[in-house]
């Protein structure tokens, strides 16, 4: 994959604030036309990444290209083709959504009033009420509307569904999937709502402490990634490249493997594992396996296997 056929490409992207390494050499590929869920815990560096991509902050080191253009030097070209929904949905309190549309549309020659009117209707936005008087959910909807109206090639959405009710979340996700991604547009969005990400994303990236821990197609996670829970002592801590994470609790050891789970389980049995079970992973489970720093399980009988089974229920 090269910088030209990817919507977003970063290499060694680093951002340091004083003593804090907000981003630590992150290399990221977002394929053109994909819906990319950008996941991470609070403070993982998601918003920092987005700010760097949009020119709101400057990287300490590394490089990034958006739509084939280099951030910093070709920022205006990037902004012409990129729509953005910020994490903090703050616009101008004294303006109505109708006036905000008027204001924003003037920046974009490709602005579609037809699309805007359609989405305003779909999202049920009170267009004549002052922004400052709107509920948090309606403010979010206005921000999304302003992004959708741009007819942008790339939508960068920072927590786009925060504060929305389930019906509107479903509507927003449907619009993103059916009317944006289906037209070849790239959607790059950060979220804590893993169920939402799983609903529309076809790629995910998991960021933690400024490092991209993982990047893959969601379909690959569903079809290939497994958690293997084995009981017994003396099991290997980490064995091969296929093992993404290992955690121990009491007599149980948990492995997240990227492929060949059955063969891996057989290998554990040969190492003397008393019991070995293989489970598929949904995104939430996968995310937790990748990013958690503290073991979920604590002692003896309520070991990893039990905890894992209960977490699935």
């Amino acid at each position, binding site marked *: 994959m090269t910088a030209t056929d990817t919507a977003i490409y970063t290499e060694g992207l680093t951002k340091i604030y004083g003593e804090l390494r907000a981003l630590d050499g992150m290399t990221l590929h977002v394929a053109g036309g994909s819906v990319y869920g950008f996941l991470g815990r609070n403070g993982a560096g998601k918003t920092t990444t987005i*700010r760097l991509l*949009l*020119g*709101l*902050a*400057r990287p300490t080191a590394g490089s990034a290209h958006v739509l084939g253009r280099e951030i910093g030097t070709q920022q*205006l070209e990037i*902004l*012409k083709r*990129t729509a*953005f929904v*910020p994490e*903090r949905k*703050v*616009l*101008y309190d*004294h*303006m109505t959504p109708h*006036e905000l549309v*008027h*204001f*924003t*549309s*003037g*920046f*974009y020659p490709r602005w579609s009033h037809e699309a805007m009117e359609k989405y305003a209707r779909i999202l049920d936005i009170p267009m004549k009420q002052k922004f400052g008087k709107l509920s948090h959910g309606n403010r979010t909807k206005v*921000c999304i509307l302003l992004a959708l109206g741009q007819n942008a090639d790339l939508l960068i959405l920072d927590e786009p569904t925060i504060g929305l009710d389930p019906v509107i979340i479903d509507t927003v996700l449907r619009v993103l999937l059916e009317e944006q991604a289906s037209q070849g547009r790239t959607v790059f969005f950060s979220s804590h709502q893993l169920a939402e990400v799983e609903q529309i994303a076809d790629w995910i990236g998991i960021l933690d402490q400024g490092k991209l821990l993982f990047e893959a197609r969601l379909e690959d996670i569903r079809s290939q990634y497994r958690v293997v829970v084995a009981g017994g002592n003396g099991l290997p801590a980490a064995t091969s490249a296929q093992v993404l994470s290992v955690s121990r609790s009491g007599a149980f050891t948990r492995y997240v493997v990227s492929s060949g789970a059955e063969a891996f389980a057989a290998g554990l049995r040969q190492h003397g594992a008393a019991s070995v079970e293989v489970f598929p992973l949904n995104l939430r489970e996968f995310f937790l396996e990748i990013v958690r720093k503290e073991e979920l399980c604590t002692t003896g009988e309520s070991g990893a296997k039990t905890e894992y089974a209960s977490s699935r229920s």
Partner: protein
Amino acid sequence: MYYWRIWRENRVRFFALLTLGLVTCWPVSVIVSADVVAAGYEGQVPPAELASRFWGHGLEVLGIAAGIAVYFVGLLAGCGGIGEEVEHGSAAFLLTRPRSRGYFVWSFWLTGSLQVLAFTLTAMLSSYAVMFYDIRRPGPWNFLLLAPVLTITGLLGIGLVNLLTTASSRTKNGVGGGVAFTVLYLVLGYVTFALHHLRRIGFPLPTPLALYHLNWNAALASTMLAWLAVSVALVGVSHWIVARLEV
């Protein structure tokens, strides 16, 4: 569109300032023209001798009064821009529109400058109307010199407050700092002027008050250019800050 938004946000204040401009110079004009008439100089350019009999050269007094007003117009017009956007939390939205950061800085400055210019012209025209009505020949050329002088004064106000607002990302700091700096600077200017008069120091701190002598000559022209350059430089520094701003 950015101009539209600034206009939308400032239109009430703008018309209020225009009204202020209309009334600010009237009392001064009336007093000055009355002095001129009373001194027997009706129909003539007010002479410098009036300065010793009353409280200064007529135009100078008029100019300084208008200058103080236009300076505060500039302070108000300069309060806002990117610093205010950062304070309010909308900077991330605005700065991701496809325009350079310089566009936002200089567009804001331009709209503020137009407000100052509109105020200046209104104040001058109203004053001229009063003086013309009273004394028939109020010395139009000296009078016209007020236009650039007042405009430069207003631009200094815009540049100073905009810089302080941008640097601190707080509008209160911008206006408060602007007023405090102005008072301090003028006091220092007066002190250094007094010390210079007593031959204690080589030269006084230059202040824009020098503009208000309103005698057209090369020194006034260079002073005007210098203060105009200072006003633009203040905006240039704001631009420099905004270009490096991370939000």
